[in-house]
């Protein structure tokens, strides 16, 4: 499935290919009121990656429920709405508003957007705050809640556990890594917002590490995201413990990357002698870890 923020509401990519190929469509972040977002430039290229500081531009949850989601529904693919906010109240209000929509298959709680001044990031860096937020949001939601974690933390496992304890139905790992690009000629940060979120292949080892680190410690499914471009990247995330994956930045270099990956997967599995992709889930962990994980999942 596409990663939030790189695929809009599917509209534009639906012109290129049939979205029913996709496992789900993840929308860009939705906030309480409409937001204009940051000034420009909002993106910068970096080695094997990019920075973005869009700043949560979106029409606000009301317009999303009224206009955007009903339009997106016709793509025939389950819609996961990415939710962001500056305060706990905003998150809760957005989720409550979404509960009224028949078009939402799941909520992805973006507690990790580094590009907004107030809040946003903080929810994803403190375990206690995250636990509370997840609990409140769960109480309001009619659909599964996936918590999307920030990599900009000392201890990702603590945050993953907090989200699970708060009732999360899944985890997305990872959002972007805070980075900076300098315009040497103009002697100033290249992005209007100064810093931005690093994504793309450059962060793939970081994302893999976090999926691998969290896998033994939670029972809920993990969605791997960060720098995926090829079928082997997908498999690396599965081997590290992700049940699903999202593709973000790669959509920019190749707008057809998602159907291409879906098409290439079966052949690659055959070449590797893998009968079912599930056989690879978490298979890069030592047997003892896999055993404990099975118990943890069974106990849930």
């Amino acid at each position, binding site marked *: 499935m596409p990663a939030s923020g790189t*695929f809009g509401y599917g*509209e534009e*990519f639906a*012109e*290129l290919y049939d979205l029913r190929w996709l496992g789900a469509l993840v929308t860009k972040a939705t906030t309480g009121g409409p937001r204009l977002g940051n000034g*420009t430039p*909002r*993106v910068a290229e970096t080695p094997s990656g990019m920075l973005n500081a869009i700043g949560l531009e979106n029409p606000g949850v009301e317009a999303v429920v009224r206009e955007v989601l009903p339009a997106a529904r016709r793509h025939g693919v389950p819609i996961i709405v990415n939710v962001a906010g500056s305060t706990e109240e905003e998150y809760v209000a957005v989720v409550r508003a979404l509960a009224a929509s028949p078009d939402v298959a799941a909520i992805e709680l973006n507690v990790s957007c580094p590009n907004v001044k107030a809040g946003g990031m903080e929810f994803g860096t403190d375990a206690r705050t995250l636990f509370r937020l997840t609990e409140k949001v769960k109480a309001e939601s009619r659909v599964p809640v996936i918590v999307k974690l920030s990599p900009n933390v000392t201890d990702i496992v603590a945050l993953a556990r907090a989200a699970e304890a708060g009732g999360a139905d899944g985890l997305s790992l990872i959002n972007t890594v805070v980075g900076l690009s300098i315009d040497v000629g103009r002697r100033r940060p290249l992005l209007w917002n100064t810093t931005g979120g690093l994504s793309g292949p450059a962060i793939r080892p970081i994302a893999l590490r976090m999926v691998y680190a969290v896998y033994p410690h939670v029972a809920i499914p993990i969605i791997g995201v960060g720098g995926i471009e090829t079928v082997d990247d997908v498999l690396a995330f599965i081997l590290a413990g992700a049940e699903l994956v999202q593709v973000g930045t790669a959509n920019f270099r190749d707008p057809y990357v998602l159907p291409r990956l879906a098409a290439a997967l079966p052949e690659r599995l055959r070449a590797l002698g893998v009968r079912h992709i599930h056989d690879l889930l978490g298979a890069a962990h030592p047997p003892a870890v896999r055993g404990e994980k099975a118990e943890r999942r069974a106990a849930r």
Partner: protein
Amino acid sequence: MRTGAARIVGRRAIGRSIVELALAVPPAFPEPRPGQFVHVRVPGDALVLRRPLSVADWDERERVLRLIFRVVGEGTARLAALPVGAAVDAFLPPSTGFPLSAVRAGETALLVGGGLGVAPLIFLARALHARGVRVKARIGFACAEDVFGLRRLRAVADVELYTDDGSAGAKGRVTDGLGPEAAFHAAFVCGPVPMLRAFQRMFRGDGRPIYAALEARMACGAGACRACVVPVAEGSALRHRRVCRDGPVFALASLHVAGVPEDGSPDGGRGWADGGGFV
């Protein structure tokens, strides 16, 4: 398929680090319109973003598309280094382009371009001329060495050439001596920020349709990521419009320039949105 392996069938160096590439596009590639751009994948595995380049000309019989660009960084340098015969993955987003219908047969269109901003005007001039529109073009460059498109423009338009140092055409800027009294039914402008700003000031309140083609740093180039927005006035409201999809051409009067620093864009070819300070 809006994207596909185009093939380089021509390659020419123009002046100081400006290159013209002719790309033969595959059958499924849609027909480009003047003012549209292609979002080009560049060789180089560490470069994750495509590069937006205006369609400078289009030969519908041969299905050959021309790009004219300046080598400014890694991406354009790599594109410029490709040999004839190489494949280039070009994506044509469904952008709006120049509204040809703004001017009718027999009427006069004024085309004003500075530097690489002249590139899309070549295609535009030929398209307008083909519709029977009288085309007047004012084009400006830094110096004689940088001049391109002159012959092709002269074939379909009445051209005034300017250079900053007077080494070709008149010494001065394309906006010199231009004013509300200029005779045209519609104008189309493409160039660096200070030029666009001068134009906007000059024609403030002028009722005639004036369109400007903008640049912006892009990611998807397809309308999905909102990297490339510019603030555009719609009635009394200010809305963000995507250069890649709602543009790259906008009504000049609707563009919100308040936040753009008066000293303009120090690095030449840079566009509007790159001026910073919006919102």
